């Protein structure tokens, strides 16, 4: 692998990311799957970096999941998105920062469509006006939340307590990065580093001391694929895709996986359990899985936040081995205590996959 | 009683070979099926035994067939076989005449001169002395030819002679030594006693002049005995086993026993009957055109005997039948190949469960083009037109593609697999209620005739059927002044014995010329379905050579009656290649045109 070659490509795919004053659009599913991620992002942005970021309770889905499942027509989607933009405009913001990759892709797609077809934009404005009497300005800057973390990755590293390094050996951790398909596949220039060698997560891993694993199935989909998972009879495709990735990364012995998409960490995390149950196979060391983290969780980890505040207890693949490697202390007995200190119950133990 | 220790090698050898041969005979008979054994029992007490004896004399002793191929070579074989045989008979008579006791030990007549060196005393002794010397000379002339052949085989008309293996070398050396040693032993003894005939006596006196013959005679007798013993003992392991085996072969064959789809005792007799004379090498086109000399029947049978058969050896044969045709022993070589292929392709499994039951149609006449026929559409077209012209109502059975007749699979040794295909075709044929089956493909016809059990139907090659139509007056043919040479397809000619009908047909349309290799000796076009390993280049070479020979007199057409031959020759022939059916169709068209012209003329004349 020649890093210079990648650097050359990265230099070709740079995007503008606003410095401050973001209008934050949360993801529909992330709050359930990895509940602490968005909270951590806001905490880091507001408390650690002192940025102005608006977390607006009024906003809705962008319809992305329904759109990609062919359930909602594009016109409807554009009108819903137009309302979200109008909320941003009303709140006095110009920099739109979605938490979800599919939303980010959809916003990019819509903005691109409007740029090439102003008549469609006009029609959508009309639809929005007719249905809600709202008007909007298009965002001046559209950056995915991971773009923003990428932008401030060095400051996080400076402020942080830990690095992605094995504290016993001093070796950098081997980190697999997985980018959501909708991040840059459709519009390579809208993602940091482009579509083939996306840099957004690589930049974080490098800044935080880890070593990136470039494995053959890096480009392959995590397996969500919307209809592949949502229709139960298709789930075989979904899990097979994830399995293909695991099989491909396994020889590299990765310590963790970092993702920037709502669906990817979920499928990469949960399918490890399903595969272990169905085939008796695990991909980490000694019967463990490979911990799958969102970039916010990783940032929180670097910052030294309490692991249970980062929501690791909600992961299927136990994160404890990773915490041990980095040297992050944790209280095993506090794992299943809620915010109020009350016991929230422990999940059933899988048959094959080791959990702690 | 006369005995000397030097006779032991001979005696041991003789006992060994007789026991071995008897054991073999028992084994062969045990490996026959019950029906075949019944044939054997019935045959022994029939006229067939006499026929067999006659054939043994003609073939095993006189080597008539080799004589036909090559007189000098025939003489060589005859002098050895017949001469030796006579030497044994006459030797016995001589011994009996001299010493009329009921039973002699077997070595006594053989070494008669040793035991009775001074024999000028009994009745006819001069006659016997002369006769025995004459026979010895006769044999020695053959042996010298054999020496000569080994070193200069071309002189005997054989371009190639079979290569030897080590047991063969032992046996050959022994055989070559036997008669010169007998000559020496008898001559030395005659030299001591001043006896002997015109050969041994003269030679004996000549040797006595300058050699200590009294010391040399005894060792010479030893050597003679050892040569005989060695020959007998190496016999079963060498090609010379063919000598006794061929006799059994002749009897069994005359009793109606044949090698068949399963290996039986007879197949083994055939294998061991091969004398490795090598005549099959020269007639093989893979030898003459491709200079390939390790696959011919002689080598093939040797591998069967040595149990070292390989796929390659079994599969490298066009099964044109030219070697069977010329084999002096009359071994059914194509069946031998088939048996070998059966074995080497034993693991080959087909699954034809996908085949549907064929659609059938009520008809009297069925026309079947065959797979190859479909690659020569002009033949099909001609047949359709001619049949229509003759007013024949027929069902073109494989108009929309066929199930293969099964012959190619069978040629690969896969009779059971082929049977699956045959079953499908047969059902459709029988369901049609037809009585006449016409095919353009000799390969198909061969298998329809032999394997399909269509006794209720008359099977025709299209050349036969077209001739029948002509005889019935349903088609008219006119003779043109063009020259045609006819190539006999292997499967049609040697395979099915159909030689005359295509010729009769052609003669009614053109001037038919016969090439040098014709009829039973016809060449193969090279397009054989039986050869599984030949490359296209090799095929083309055979086709070019064959076509060149066929067209040496520059005919206008090279006519054949097989789609595979036609297709193969098309790439190689300097003159246009036609199927008989195409000629017939052209003739009909031509006649039609002339008739139309004539009627137009008449009409014009009438109008005027």
């Amino acid at each position, binding site marked *: 692998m020649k890093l210079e070659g990648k650097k050359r490509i990265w230099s070709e795919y740079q995007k503008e990311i606003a410095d401050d004053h973001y209008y934050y659009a949360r993801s529909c599913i992330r709050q359930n799957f990895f509940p602490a991620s968005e909270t951590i992002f806001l905490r880091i942005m507001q408390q650690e970096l002192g940025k102005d970021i608006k977390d607006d309770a009024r906003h809705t889905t962008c319809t992305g999941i329904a759109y990609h499942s062919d359930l909602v027509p594009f016109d409807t989607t554009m009108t819903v998105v137009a309302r979200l933009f109008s909320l941003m405009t009303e709140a006095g913001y110009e920099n739109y920062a979605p938490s979800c990759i599919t939303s980010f892709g959809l916003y990019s797609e819509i903005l691109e469509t409007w740029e090439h077809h102003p008549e469609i934009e006009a029609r959508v404005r009309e639809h929005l006006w007719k249905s809600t009497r709202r008007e909007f300005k298009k965002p001046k800057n559209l950056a995915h939340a991971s773009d923003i973390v990428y932008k401030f990755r060095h400051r996080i590293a400076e402020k942080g307590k830990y690095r992605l390094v094995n504290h016993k050996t001093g070796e950098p951790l081997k980190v697999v990065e997985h980018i959501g398909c909708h991040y840059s596949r459709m519009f390579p220039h809208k993602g940091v580093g482009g579509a083939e060698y996306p840099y957004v997560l690589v930049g974080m891993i490098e800044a935080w001391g880890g070593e990136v694993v470039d494995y053959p199935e890096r480009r392959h989909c995590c397996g969500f694929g919307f209809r592949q998972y949502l229709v139960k009879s298709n789930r075989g495709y979904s899990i097979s895709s994830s399995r293909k990735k695991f099989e491909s990364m396994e020889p590299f012995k990765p310590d963790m996986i970092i993702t920037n998409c709502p669906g990817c960490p979920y499928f990469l995390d949960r399918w490890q359990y399903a595969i272990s149950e169905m085939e008796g196979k695990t991909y980490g060391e000694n019967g463990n899985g490979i911990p799958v983290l969102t970039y916010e969780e990783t940032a929180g980890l670097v910052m030294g936040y309490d692991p249970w505040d980062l929501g690791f207890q909600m992961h299927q693949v136990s994160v404890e081995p990773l915490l041990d490697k980095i040297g992050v202390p944790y209280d095993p007995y506090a794992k299943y205590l809620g915010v109020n200190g009350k016991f929230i119950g422990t999940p059933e133990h899988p048959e094959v996959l080791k959990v702690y | 009683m006369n005995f000397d220790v030097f006779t032991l090698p001979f005696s041991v050898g003789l006992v060994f070979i007789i026991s071995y041969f008897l054991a073999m005979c028992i084994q062969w008979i045990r490996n026959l099926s019950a029906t075949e054994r019944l044939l054997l029992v019935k045959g022994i007490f029939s006229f067939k035994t006499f026929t067999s004896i006659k054939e043994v004399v003609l073939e095993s002793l006189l080597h008539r067939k080799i004589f036909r191929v090559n007189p000098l070579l025939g003489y060589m074989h005859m002098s050895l076989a017949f001469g030796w045989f006579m030497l044994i008979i006459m030797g016995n008579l001589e011994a009996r005449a001299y010493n009329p006791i009921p039973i002699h030990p077997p070595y006594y007549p053989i070494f008669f001169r040793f035991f009775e060196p001074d024999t000028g005393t009994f009745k006819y002794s001069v006659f016997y002395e002369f006769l025995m010397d004459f026979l010895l000379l006769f044999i020695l002339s053959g042996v010298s030819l054999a020496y000569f052949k080994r070193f200069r085989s071309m002189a005997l008309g054989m371009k190639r002679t079979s290569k030897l293996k080590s047991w063969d070398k032992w046996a050959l050396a022994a055989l070559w030594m036997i008669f010169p040693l007998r000559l020496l032993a008898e001559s030395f003894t005659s030299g001591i006693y001043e006896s002997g005939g015109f050969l041994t006596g003269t030679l004996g006196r000549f040797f006595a002049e300058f050699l200590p013959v009294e010391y040399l005679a005894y060792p010479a007798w030893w050597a003679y005995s050892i040569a005989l013993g060695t020959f007998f003992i190496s016999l079963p392991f060498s090609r010379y086993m063919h000598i006794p085996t061929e006799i059994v072969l002749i009897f069994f064959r005359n009793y109606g026993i044949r090698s068949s789809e399963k290996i039986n005792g007879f197949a083994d007799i055939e294998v061991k009957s091969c004398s490795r004379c090598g005549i099959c090498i020269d007639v093989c086109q893979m030898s003459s055109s491709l200079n390939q000399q390790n696959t011919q029947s002689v080598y093939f049978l040797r591998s069967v005997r040595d149990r070292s058969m390989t*796929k390659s050896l079994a599969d490298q044969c066009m099964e044109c039948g030219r070697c069977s045709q010329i084999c002096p022993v009359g071994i059914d070589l194509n069946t031998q190949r088939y048996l070998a292929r059966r074995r080497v392709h034993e693991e080959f499994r087909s699954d034809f469960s996908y085949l549907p039951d064929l659609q059938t149609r009520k008809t009297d006449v069925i026309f079947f083009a065959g797979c190859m026929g479909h690659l020569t559409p002009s033949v099909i077209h001609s047949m359709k037109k001619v049949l229509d012209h003759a007013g024949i109502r027929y069902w073109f059975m494989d108009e929309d593609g066929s199930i*293969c007749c099964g012959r190619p699979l069978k040629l690969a040794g896969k009779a059971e697999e082929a049977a699956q295909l045959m079953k499908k075709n047969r059902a459709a044929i029988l369901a049609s209620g037809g009585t006449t089956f016409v095919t353009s493909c000799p390969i198909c016809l061969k298998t329809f005739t032999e394997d399909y059990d269509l006794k209720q139907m008359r099977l025709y090659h299209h050349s036969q059927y077209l001739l029948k139509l002509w005889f019935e007056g349903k088609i008219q043919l006119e003779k043109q002044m063009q020259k045609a040479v006819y190539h006999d397809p292997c499967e049609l000619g040697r395979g099915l014995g159909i030689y005359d009908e295509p010729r009769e047909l052609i003669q009614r349309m053109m001037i038919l010329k016969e090439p040098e290799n014709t009829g039973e000796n016809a060449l193969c076009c090279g397009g054989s379905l039986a050869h599984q390993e030949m*490359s296209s280049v090799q095929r083309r070479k055979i086709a070019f050579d064959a076509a060149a020979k066929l067209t040496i007199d520059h005919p206008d057409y090279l006519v054949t009656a097989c789609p595979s031959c036609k297709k193969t020759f098309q790439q190689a022939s300097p003159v246009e290649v036609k199927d008989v059916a195409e000629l017939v169709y052209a003739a009909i068209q031509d006649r039609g045109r002339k008739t139309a012209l004539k009627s137009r003329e008449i009409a014009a004349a009438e109008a005027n």
Partner: protein
Amino acid sequence: MNKFGYTISRDNQIDYDKVDRSMAAFIEKNEPTFRICIQCGSCAASCSAANFTRFSFRKLCLLIRRGLTDDVQKEVSKCMLCGKCRLVCPRGVNTRNIILNVHQALHKTTVYEL
């Protein structure tokens, strides 16, 4: 295993690093014309068996090349050995001998006692 109401589907991808190439090597050795197939499909177009079933000699060659021995075994049994393909092949591939060798390769016997 179907534990959750779905199964992990096997990859349709040919993993060339894992397939068994021995049959291709065996056939190349015994029938060198196997190498020169240009996948034109004349054989399949003229095939007698293909009138009745999905059989393609062209594809068979490819399956051998790609080491998909199980598929080869399934397919090869359909051939009737009629030899039309041999006559139409523009490259002179000895089709029938390839079929015979496939059977040989499947069983790996080389010297026979009769």
